[in-house]
Every structure is written in C-alpha cells, then in structure tokens.
C-alpha cells in the first residue's frame, strides 16, 4: 500500500518510460511518483534556450534571484517538456517546487496537488542532525571548508534515481553507519523495498570505501546482463549486476574505471552511430564519453592490482580503465539530461558571464562553440 506523504523537498528527478515523475524528497525520506500526462510535441519545435533560467524561475516563484536553488532536471519521455526541481526560500521557510519548461519555452509551475501521486517512505533514512566532518586541503581548513561542517548528511541520502523495467533504483546514504546504499523499489509502490550496502575499491584513494554514495548511475546491458554503471566522487566507475541487489546484502561493486579527482554530476545514456554511449558530466573535469560496449569484459580491480598508495590526477596509472574520451564542453554542465536522439539539454553555468542557462547541445562533439573564436569564425575562412 502506498503512503500519502506531502512533498517537503524536490530533489533528484527521473521519469519512468510512461511519464511517471519520480521525485526524491530528502526532507521526508520518501520518493514521490507523480503521474504526469504529456502529449508528444509536434515535429516543428525549436530547441529550447533560456538565458538566466534561475532568474526566470525566481520570478515565477515570486522571490529574488538568491532565493531559489535548482536541484535536478529531467525530460518527460513523451512530451519532451523539461522538469526542474527547485527549492524556494522565502519568509524563513523553504518550499519545494517543480517547474516545467514547455517546448515553446514557456515556464510554468507544476501543480503537483492536481496530479495522482504515490509515495514510498524509505527505511533506514538518515536523521537531519548529523553533519559532515570538517576537512581542509594543504594549509588546513578554510572558511569554505568549515562551512561543510554545517551540511547534513541527509542531503546526500537521495543522490540519483534510475528507473528500469518496473523498478526504481535509488542511490544515496543510508542511516546505518552512513553507508553508501542502493535501494530497489518496484513501481507501482507496494511498500516493498530492498536496501543493499555497497562497498567498492577506490583506485585514487587506494582504499575500500563504504560511506560516500553513488553520485550518478545508469542501467546498461553489460556482459550479457543488466548492470548498474555507477560513478562516485574522485571518480571511480563501478558495475553492479542488478541481481545482486537483494535486501540486507552487503556487496562489493566491481571497480573498472577511475577518471581521477572531481565529482560526477550526471550519467546520460545516448547513441553515437548506433552504439550505446554514456555521457558522464563532472563538476571539475571535462565530460567523459564512454562506449558502453567497452565496459563488457572490463577487468575489475582491487588493491592487489596496483602499488599501494594514493593515485591522484598526475599518477601514471590515471585515468584508469576503459574511460572513453574526455570531450570539450564549454561552461559547467550542472544538470544534464537527454532531450531526444539529437540533443542533450543542460543547465550550464556560462564560463564567461556566470549566467545559468538552459540550453540544448547536439549529441555530437564538439557541441558548444558559441564562445569560441577560432580560425573558422573569420570571414572567408
């Protein structure tokens, strides 16, 4: 039986193939599934491009620019409308909001009260009191490092959502010793959920890690079975066969790639020349285009495969594994999703203006040349 829970936070988003919008609610410790109708757009739509989308969202929600936080973005599989989860801060309170960008670029607030909804409360959810430890680099913690000590661990309790074949997969931190966990919940929600603790070998750090959560993930067919491809901070990629996700199990993920320091943001499947690919964005590195076929037969590594000791960005073994290639992406792609076969949609912090822009980017590379002034931009070239 599904619970009835009012949404208190709109965080991670993903859609089912039929258009159910799943919303991670880190405040209530729940996943809400909204039935979100949408009709296929006419073929003649202009790719969306909205400058200063955060200012537009703030206007829509009736607050100043500093009073909105954008949490995630997803594309409706049928209507191709873009859904953005937002926190609105005003009058000493924060409220969740979901904003829809229509194909004609019109912004509207999604009236979630008018949508059929099912909620699933998550077990073993972290409390809201425990915060991160303070850690500095080099000469000790700076004020910006100390501020991390005020961040609740619960903010990482729901990191990413992935819907596959009737199951919703939820990555994040579970309460018990703050362990990295993968939840598997069948939809429609029937109260059944499994929580699996995930440990993995982290090449860069040269240690086995069980706390830091998966940041981004995608289910792909690898070595003849459906496997979760999952990216962690600083930045290993691991494989988890779906049949290992059993309630109460503690599993060791298979580490096959380490891209080096940085924090993955999104993992977006797409196709290039008919081949399945993953587009993995990062807050501090170029996005990586990883051929999915290259992950089949990849060697899973442990500490026995390397000399002991940390292996940071400049170490000869880095980057490790079938990483694919880094590609040019101008600006910081804070949120990324696939719009259709031709385009990714991104919320991108412009490298020059700092504007936060919603725009589309072809699924071919290089794909953002508007700020580049190269030989070919000159008349006659």
């Amino acid at each position, binding site marked *: 039986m599904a619970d009835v829970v009012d949404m208190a936070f709109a965080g991670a988003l993903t859609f089912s193939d039929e258009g159910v919008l799943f919303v991670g609610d880190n405040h209530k410790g729940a996943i809400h599934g909204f039935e979100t109708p949408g009709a296929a757009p006419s073929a003649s739509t202009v790719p969306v491009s909205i400058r200063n989308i955060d200012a537009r*969202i703030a*206007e*829509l929600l009736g607050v100043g620019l500093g009073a909105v936080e954008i949490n995630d973005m997803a594309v409706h599989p049928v209507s191709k409308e873009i859904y953005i989860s937002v926190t*609105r801060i*005003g009058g000493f309170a924060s409220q969740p909001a979901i904003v829809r960008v229509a194909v004609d670029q019109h912004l509207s*607030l999604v009236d979630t009260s008018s949508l059929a909804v099912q909620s699933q409360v998550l077990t073993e959810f972290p409390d809201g009191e425990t915060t991160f430890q303070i850690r500095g680099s080099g000469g000790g913690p700076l004020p910006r490092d100390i501020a991390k000590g005020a961040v609740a661990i619960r903010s990482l309790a729901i990191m990413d959502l992935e819907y596959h074949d009737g199951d919703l997969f939820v990555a994040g931190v579970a309460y018990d010793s703050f362990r990295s966990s993968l939840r598997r919940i069948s939809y429609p929600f029937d109260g059944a959920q499994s929580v699996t603790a995930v440990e993995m070998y982290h090449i860069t750090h040269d240690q086995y890690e069980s706390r830091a959560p998966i940041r981004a993930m995608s289910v792909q067919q690898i070595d003849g079975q459906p496997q979760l491809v999952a990216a962690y901070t600083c930045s290993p990629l691991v494989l988890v066969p779906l049949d290992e996700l059993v309630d109460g199990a503690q599993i060791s993920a298979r580490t096959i790639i380490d891209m080096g320091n940085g924090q993955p943001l999104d993992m977006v499947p797409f196709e290039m020349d008919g081949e399945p690919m993953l587009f993995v964005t990062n807050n501090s590195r170029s996005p990586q285009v990883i051929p999915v076929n290259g992950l089949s037969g990849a060697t899973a590594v442990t500490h026995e495969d390397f000399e002991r000791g940390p292996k940071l960005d400049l170490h000869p073994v880095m980057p490790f594994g079938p990483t694919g290639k880094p590609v040019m992406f101008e600006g910081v792609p804070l949120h990324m999703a696939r719009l259709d076969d031709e385009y990714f949609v991104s919320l991108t912090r412009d490298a020059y203006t700092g504007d936060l822009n919603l725009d589309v980017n072809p699924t071919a590379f290089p794909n953002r040349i508007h700020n580049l002034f190269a030989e070919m931009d000159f008349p006659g070239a």
Partner: protein
Amino acid sequence: MPDLGNPRLVVPETVDDPPVVRLIGGSVSPDPVAEDDHLAVFVGSADSYHARRTPVAGRYERWGTELRFVPAFGFVAGQDYVVRVRGAAGSHRLTALRLRSEVSAPPAVVTAVYPSGDVVPENVLRFYVHFSVPMTPHLASQFVTLRTASGVADHATFMRFKQELWSADRTRLTVLVDPGRIKRGVATNLDLGPAFTEGDQYVLAVDGGWPSADGSSQLQAFSTRIRAGAPLREQPDVRRWRWWPPRPGTRTMLEISFDRPFDRHSLNGAIHMTASDGTVIAGTPTVPSSETSWSFTPDEPWPAGEVYVSVSDALEDVAGNSLRELLDQPPGSSTSSTAR
C-alpha cells in the same frame, strides 16, 4: 476587447493580509487564457518591469465581476512586486505591491556609553559603547573618535586591533585607550602626550551611517561630552566604601558608595552578599549612573545577624586598577607590586 470600465485594484499590504490580489468591477473576459493578460503580478519594482518578465505563478478565481489572483507560494515580505492590470485600449497600468513586515527591525542607535559619568580620570582605560542592534564589525576605527572641545580629532586615542572587541551578539563594543598613551614614560606617552589631560573637555563621537549587521539600518550619530578629571594612581580602597546597613526583616535596598568609578562590566558578578551561615543572599544588583555606587535588593527580607559583602579582587576601576594591582606604575619604580 470588452469594455473593462474602471476596475478597482486591492492588494495586500502587510504579511497578515490574505495573499490575494483583487481586481474588482469592470467586465472580465470569460476566456480563461486571457486571465493573466487582465491581471498579473511580477517580481521587481515598477521601474524594472518589462514585458518579458515571467509572471508570478498562481491561480485565478472569479467572483462575479471580480477577478482574483492567488500566488502559489504567497508573497514574501520586503520583496518588491508590481501588479499589471490591463486598461482601456490594451494599455497596462502598473501598481507597486510590497508587504510590510510584521516586525520592523529597530533602528541602530547608541543606547549607552560607559563610563557614564560626566567626568572620567585622565588615565581612563576603556569605554564601552552599547548599540540597540548588532552592528557590522571592522568599522569601529572609522566611526568612533575622540575629539577635543574645539573639534580636533585625535585618531591615536584608541587601540586598533585586527580583531575588534565585540560582545558575542555584537551589540557591545569595547574601545581601549592606547595604554601607551596612559602609561607614564613609555614611548607613545612621551611622543603624543596623554590622550586625556585633567581639566580639559572632550567629545566621544560615534558617527552616523555605521550599518547594522543585517544591513537594514544605519546608525544615528551620537556624541557625549566628557571632562577629564584627576588620574586614579592608587589602588581602590574598600575601606573608603560607605554603606548604611538595611534593617533585618525588610527588603530595603542596600547601596554601597565607592571611592571611585568602577569599570561597568567588571562590576558584573564582582560583589556578593552572604549571610552569617555562609549562604549567598539572592537578589537583584543594579549599577546606578556614573558607576560610583552599587545597589542590591534581596529577593527575601534581609536575615538577622551579620551580612558579609565579598568583592572580587579582579574588580577594576575605570583606569584598569584592580584590587590586586595598579595598571600603571610610577616611572622609575620597581616591578609591579601588589598591595594585597
């Protein structure tokens, strides 16, 4: 377009008003698509309005000839909004909407300065400036100045610390007179002379415009006249304190007259009353103006028998002399000596 007549607009004014914008009278098109063309609310002032602004999300309700707009999240106090109403011939009328907050922050003013007496000894060590609201730090040296009676500012009077001396809630600033100006025979004392000279008049000024910590208010200018009196070169002497014993069985206030003005904050918790059986007598102490006396009203009637007054030897007078030691030894004297 239908004739809209001359509709009346009613907007909320305070956070207690229902967050509803009402357009009363005039005939409103029945076409629901056009509702936000008749009436819409935008973030920002009327000056900053332009047609590409995104209207605030909300729902429309019709009550007869009235069109109502209810914002999805209410309005935020202090945020500028503008209401756009379609007038005749498609023109737009803009009306400002800004909710007053229930509690407006009190203005920033200086509420007290200690020592509070008109006369301070010429070797006064510190001043306390109390503010009505928390203040922005790191600006004290720009705003707090000592001036002579003729208006000449002495910018070297007070110590300049990297870390200003604020109370935890940043409503009390401690301003320390440079001890080098006070201590006789040290370099700054010889170069610049003492900051205060007995018999002269001064003005302690806190200039206006100092922003409060939350930026919502700017300090009103404040100044107080001070006359420098004889220096305090001897340690405080409790034998010269005077009081009149209250009658047992009454709650009469006990007042102790000091031999000199004491540091206002050093007085906090420095004096206790104890009954002959050793129990501390609970009550309310007060420090009358000029800090030259201290009074105490017991919660219960005074007990019979002897009452002891105990004074912390850390208590300092306004020149920083405690019951333990003098701040400033006469030039040529040996190392610090303690009288007790």
